[in-house]
């Protein structure tokens, strides 16, 4: 119960807007998820918080290619993809040597994936329901 309560507090904090409104250039985001609904809502949410969503991809292969084309600052990457999993895409994207940072997301809990999140090159994990610009920004290095 204590773990759950902690998450609730984190959710409240994360909900506060304007993290990135400090005049710096808006962060460019690529959203990779096979659910169009989620992509649309994530785009709206992140844009409402000052992120610039530069592209969307519906599969792992698309995601890798688009990331290389657009070179975004952040890739919001779903773990579960129809052709591969987010860990492989993360490894591929971060393995290219650019500055792109990957934030994994899933409707499952991060603990379900154990050490995989930390070992694939991603900078962090956000549960989809807890997604916010502030949470993304907090994970970035």
């Amino acid at each position: 119960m204590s773990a759950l309560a902690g998450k609730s507090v984190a959710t409240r904090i994360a909900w506060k807007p304007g993290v990135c409104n400090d005049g710096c250039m808006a962060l460019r985001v690529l959203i990779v998820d096979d659910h169009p609904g989620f992509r649309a809502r994530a785009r709206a949410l992140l844009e409402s918080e000052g992120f610039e969503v530069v592209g969307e991809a519906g599969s792992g292969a698309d995601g890798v290619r688009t990331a290389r084309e657009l070179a975004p600052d952040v890739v919001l990457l779903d773990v579960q993809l129809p052709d591969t999993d987010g860990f492989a895409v993360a490894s591929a994207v971060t393995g290219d040597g650019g500055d792109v940072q990957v934030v994994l997301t899933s409707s499952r809990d991060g603990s379900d994936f154990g050490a995989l999140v930390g070992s694939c090159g991603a900078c962090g994990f956000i549960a989809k329901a807890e997604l916010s610009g502030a949470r993304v920004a907090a994970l970035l290095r």
Partner: protein
Amino acid sequence: MTARRVTIAVLAALVLATVAIAQVEATTRTHRNGNMYLGFGLPVVWAFVVAGLIALRRRPGNRTGVLMIAIGFGWVASALTDGRNDLVFTIGMLLSNLWPGLMLHLLLSYPSGTLDRRSRIIVTAGYIDTLGVALLLVPFSEPRSDGLGASTRSAHNLLLVSHQTTLINVIQVIAFAVAVVVLGAALVVLGQRWRAATPPMRRVLAPMYLTGATAIGVTLLIVAILQIAGVVGNMFAFYAFCISFTAIPVGYLFGILRTRLDSGSAVQTLVATLRDQRTPGGLQNALRVALGDPTLEVAYRRPGTDEYLDATGEHVDLTAVGGRATTEIEHDGEVVAVLVHAPVPPDETGLIDAVCGPAAMAIENERLQADLRAQIQEVTASARRLRDVLENVHLLAVSLDLEGRITFANQHLADVTGWSREELVGSVWLERFPTGDPYYLERVRDERILVHDEMPLRTRSGDERAISWSNTLDRDAAGRVVGSTSIGEDVTDRNRAVRQEEALRRLATMVAGSAHPDEIFAAVCEEVARLMGGQTGNLVRFGDGPGTATVVAGWAEESEIPMPIGAEVAFDGPTAIAEAVRTGRPARVDDYASVGGELAERLRGLGVHSSVAAPVAADGRLWGAIIVSTTGDSILARDAEGRIGQFAEVVALCLSSTEARSQLAASRARIVAAGDAERRRLERNLHDGAQQRLVALSLALRMARATVAADHPAAELLDSAGDELMQALEELRELARGIHPAVLSDQGLRAALGALTGRSPVPVRLEVELREELPPPVEAAAYYVVAESLTNIAKYAGATVVDVVVRSEGRSARVEVRDDGVGGADPATGTGLCGLADRIEALGGVLRVASPVSEGTMVAAELPLAAVDPEPPVALGFADSAL
């Protein structure tokens, strides 16, 4: 009073009475010839009294003596009527008629002194007719007036009332008539007794009856003459009367004397006869002669028993002697024999005693001989019985002497061995049967014989039989060992049946214990070949084409060349296997020398001489065959087909059991796999459906909230809704995770275990060492073992640390979860562990739980990597083409 005093008293009384009578006669001179009167009268008195005294002395309990004495004094009393004194006269009158009654009593009670019922009536009538009538007449009789010697009498009847001559005459006539009847009845009784008497009894009765009958006859005659002639006081009648009566006691004394004389002569006869009688029963004959009883038998008592024997040693039943008398003969205070003889009057027993005394030694001697003969008969009968038993029993029986020569052989031995009894008896056992025990004779001589042993015995036809022997030493009378006798049971068939049963049981145990078919088939080949005495045993599976088979398993004695496993065999020609295929029944070839075809040629090359093949049917179809073969010259036993057939059934059982087991395992695996697939689908549906929608809703809420000022009334409502939604998502995630760990199917066991242990509230040390990726069902089982264990540990164990190890071990994976908690877990009470055990067993694995109290809990699962194929089984791997 002692007998001597009685004798003295009686003799004194007799002398007194004699003197008194003489005095009476001298003073009264009643009789014209007084001296003659006394001369004839007194001897009667003396004879009876003296004879009575002698009788009393011989047999104090017998009334005979008393009666004789009474008769003597009765005569004296009758003489009292001659007295002048009135009182004496009156007493004489009262008692003068006593003696005839006593006389009758004496005759009828002789020799026992007792009366039977009929005699008692006669005697009573006699007393009434004599003494009773006299007493009745006393008041009416004055002898001086009766005309009977009235002129000579001077005394008066003191009891006289009135003299009644007519009354006296009438009553006397009646009394006479009664007397005739009574005496006639007495004569009839005595005559009957005489007829019924045995010779010894007659010898006793004769003197008394003769004299008694004479006296009665004389009395009747005299009375009749007196009555008819009216003669009174005729002295000649009196003399005859006296003489005939004196003869009675004299006759009695003569009888006694004769018994004495008889005893002496009987003993002499006995001694003389015994001298001539040497045969058994000689003594009995001698006693018969000596005692004059041709029916006499001697029953000898067996020393120390109550059994009686005759001279030849035959049993005698003394309870069935009928109406015959028995006399025990004692020697040294012990009854040594019983004489069974005609009933003997008491007086005669003296004769037996007299004879048996001298004969005692002879009796004792013959008794011992009778006992010896009885013993010999018993021994002979016993030996005969034993020989009969040995002869007729359905067992082998043989006696050997100390040289090992056969002295007896029963017919069954001859039947089993094939040698005739004539050929057997006289021959030396070990020469006839060289497979026998070579140390047997030595052991017999040393008296160290083995009571039971089992030895092979080769029959005339060369068959080897197993015989279970029971051996006994034979001894002579002195106890020296003279040979041995053995009883043998042919246990060949039984041994073989037992060995076959044991072999079948071993194989059945292997089948039941889920041993691998290859092992079972190899064992079948070896067991059946060894049991049947074959040098090789093979199991072949028939191929698709006709006339071909593949060797599946085989065994061969070390010296033989085995058929290689997997070798193809084409069976052409009339081989055993071809016949078995053709008929579907076991078949044999006793000699391959003349059998044509490629296979026969190949078998000859392997040295095979004979074969028996039994078909193996599985699932209603001919699957293969067991073939047992011999090399050299030997052939398989006649019943080999049926017995090998039983092993073929074991193979069929193994096939169907393996089939059934693999089907069951596949079925269970399918159920588990289907369950897993369903759970995966459910989890995926949750993830793609409800979870995605709730996530979308959550993001929408968050965006809506961003558009509302913090102090707006809707802000709090939206915050609350957002919290609720997060809670619902968390619960849904938990539910989905419980249904199926997506990470397991997506990322594999290692990642899934990492995530699992990462969430554990109790610290976990995870060690995964797998050489290869595990099959999905095995991964799932391993995952659930760890998951269930960690859940239990968190709930109950109170552990501080958990070690989880998953590693490859040979052809299986081992999963071990060990904690340092309180232990004491009972796997039977946890449905979670039970379900796990089912899942693992469905994979052919094993789950073990060790949870000693206070020593933590260890849950370990062995999971075969060659997981059961959940696909429907086609057939056994090596049999798929045939089944």
